């Protein structure tokens, strides 16, 4: 606890503040919020507060009370999901959607760094029943109906962000398992809570979507077998403008090999961006790859998924709000023609 707070003192922008945990007893104390704001000092002594050192308080406020107000008034404060997962889960079970402002994270994450989160050794190691309990009732041993092969994830949303697309797709394909993959842990936590809340408030729905925190650029084959997926989504990925950072782009000629491996023949890869340069890059990567072929425009018009690309995600809505342009590239996994 001290370590975490100590680090918060050093990094004011990554403050991991958890009001509920630091003051469990005082939380329930009846104190009108308006009073809190009035009595609060305009500039809190962050270092002291962060190190948990009691400070002198005007009037009769308790130290922990000061903590509460400090974090409430700090505009960029975030809530650590790992520490108050219980309360958050309790909230989502009651069907209340998580609030995004508590899950603010940096917009970028380094995909090249060594990951320290757990990764399944192989696709067989990926526990579907944990992610989709509705489709894998306990005791069924992974087999949902009789002797049919166990259900597998068919759609992957790479870099799912806040999960808008998953939530949009879920009712369209209620029997298809979909997995979002996101590298930023706080965002992943948000999506997790969002899905749990949706499941709680709409029983029987949204059971087919889930999310994992992972680096899909490195570990995609650890999650999906050959030809397991029928759709992959890359919506508004990080543009990485600098040329030396192009290798961090999620669509690249070499990574397309792996996407082609995970997609079944006939499976579709959807990409969209609001950055023209990246749009050109993704289109040319896909165009040049012998294992992908463009999906004709008429087909796209009939595809219900295409409409969601720009409308379902948070990023897409932002672009639409600002009247921005989007660049779409939709390609199909084809069989390599023998020469």
């Amino acid at each position, binding site marked *: 606890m001290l370590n975490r707070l100590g680090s918060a003192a050093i990094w004011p922008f990554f403050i991991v503040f958890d009001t509920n945990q630091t003051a469990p007893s005082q939380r329930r104390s009846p104190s009108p919020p308006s009073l809190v704001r009035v009595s609060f000092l305009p500039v809190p002594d962050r270092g002291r507060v962060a190190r948990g050192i009691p400070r002198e308080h005007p009037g009769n406020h308790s130290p922990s009370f000061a903590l509460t107000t400090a974090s409430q008034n700090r505009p960029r404060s975030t809530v650590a999901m790992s520490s108050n997962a219980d309360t958050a889960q309790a909230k989502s079970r009651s069907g209340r959607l998580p609030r995004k402002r508590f899950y603010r994270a940096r917009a970028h994450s380094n995909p090249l760094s060594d990951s320290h989160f757990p990764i399944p050794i*192989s696709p067989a190691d990926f526990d579907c029943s944990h992610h989709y309990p509705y489709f894998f009732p306990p005791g069924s041993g992974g087999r949902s109906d009789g002797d049919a092969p166990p259900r597998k994830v068919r759609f992957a949303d790479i870099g799912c962000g806040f999960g808008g697309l998953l939530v949009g797709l879920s009712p369209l394909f209620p029997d298809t398992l979909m997995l979002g993959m996101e590298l930023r842990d706080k965002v992943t936590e948000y999506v997790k809570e969002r899905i749990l809340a949706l499941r709680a408030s709409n029983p029987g729905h949204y059971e087919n979507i889930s999310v994992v925190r992972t680096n899909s650029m490195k570990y995609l084959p650890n999650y999906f077998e050959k030809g397991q997926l029928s759709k992959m989504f890359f919506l508004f990925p990080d543009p990485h403008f600098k040329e030396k950072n192009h290798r961090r782009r999620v669509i690249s000629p070499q990574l397309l090999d792996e996407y*082609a*491996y995970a997609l079944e023949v006939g499976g579709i890869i959807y990409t969209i961006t609001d950055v023209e340069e990246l749009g050109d890059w993704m289109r040319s990567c896909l165009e040049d790859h012998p294992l992908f072929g463009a999906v004709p425009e008429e087909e796209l018009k009939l595809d219900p998924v295409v409409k969601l690309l720009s409308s379902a995600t948070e990023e897409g809505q932002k672009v639409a709000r600002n009247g921005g342009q989007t660049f779409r590239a939709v390609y199909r996994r084809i069989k390599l023609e023998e020469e």
Partner: protein
Amino acid sequence: MEESAEIVSDGGHEAAAAAAIMDTENGLVEEEKNMDVKVAPALISVHPFEKSVVVAVGSELRLFNLEGDCSVSLKDDSGGPLHSDAIRAITFGANGRLFVSAGDDKLVKIWATSTWHCVCSVSADKRVSAVAISHNGKYVAFADKFGVIWLITLDEDDANQSKVDDKAVPILGHYCSIVTRLEFSPDDRFIASSDRDFKIRITAFPKRPLKGALEIQSFCLGHKDYVSGLSFACPSGYDHGFLFSGGGDSTVRLWDFFSGLLLATCEVGAKAELLQSTGTKDSYPPVTDLCSSSDGTIIAVAIQSLHGIVLLNCDFSDRTLSVAKVVTLEENYFPTSLALSTFTQRMWTIMGASNDLAPSTTQLPTRIRVISGFCKDRSNDNGHDPIVLEDNEVPGGQKLLSHLQGSPDVTKEDAALAAAAEAVKVSMRNMLIKKEYTLDKRELRKRNRNDRKLK
């Protein structure tokens, strides 16, 4: 003194916290420094028909021609040193006509073994970590530390004079992960590449590979640490053959590489320890090298801090992999590389390491041991055991040893060799093992990020 006393009285918390941070910071810096020391293990490679043996230690290539019973110095048109930094990978082609060496100086040198002349020298963008020659001798593949695998085409139209298009073409990539080994399947239909992210990727090697090897046949996933050795085996009677792999998790695994299915796992580290009964350990030592004969009857494994090699038995029909025998050598002999001559069935082993600190003029010591007498017929249990050849029984004798070992009497170099073995262990670990940081350390590292230092 007064000042410090004042600080303590003023705000003991801050001072103590600051001191703690300083301490860990110093520790961190020291640790980082240790990580900077890069030591490359000594490598050995033997001609498939045992016509010659090559040793690479540091930036030096030592060659002994067994046919002519003489040491050979390699020739290069450039006139400069052959390699200017540690050599990381050497290999002979399957037919013995070509030899490739590459390493940290970002040069891939292809040699014609008939004259030991450098056919071509291709410069890579990044440091090279692995090389392989296709079995038909038409292609040389090499991998760099960024995980990209490149291909050099060799044009063998006019008999022995190989003409080379000395431009390398990228054909596939592991996403920013050090590629540890590269291997062509015996029929050249697949290329296997392993990386430090526990993966083995089997890619279909197309007829026209310069357009890229795009079609992934399978991923062999099961290792729980970096993969350090790959070897194909094609016993008769099986369609596609098998793949052996050794890893930092102290296991050797048998794969049906066509489907990516893990068939058998042998915890060689644990088994070897048990057989030697040298006490228990929390973590088992990683596999440093692995080689096998093409029919899979001989599988030899070198394990870190095991003074000897482990021979495995593989039953392809039963899909089992078991330790057949641990061949122990003298104390303090920890092989860093293995090479098997398919023709004579002799196993060449070497111990040694590059040394950044030593002046480049000194000859780095290595130690070579040769193991012979692998029984081809495994059905006969009474078959003789493999024998470790004495120095005078080694093909080429004392002449070969004094040249390849870099010292006429290598027994005097025991201390240097032991130090080298330890350095290799640390260096390979730092390079390939995933670093685990505690929360504190992570915060410290964030503070010391390079992009934050530059204002």
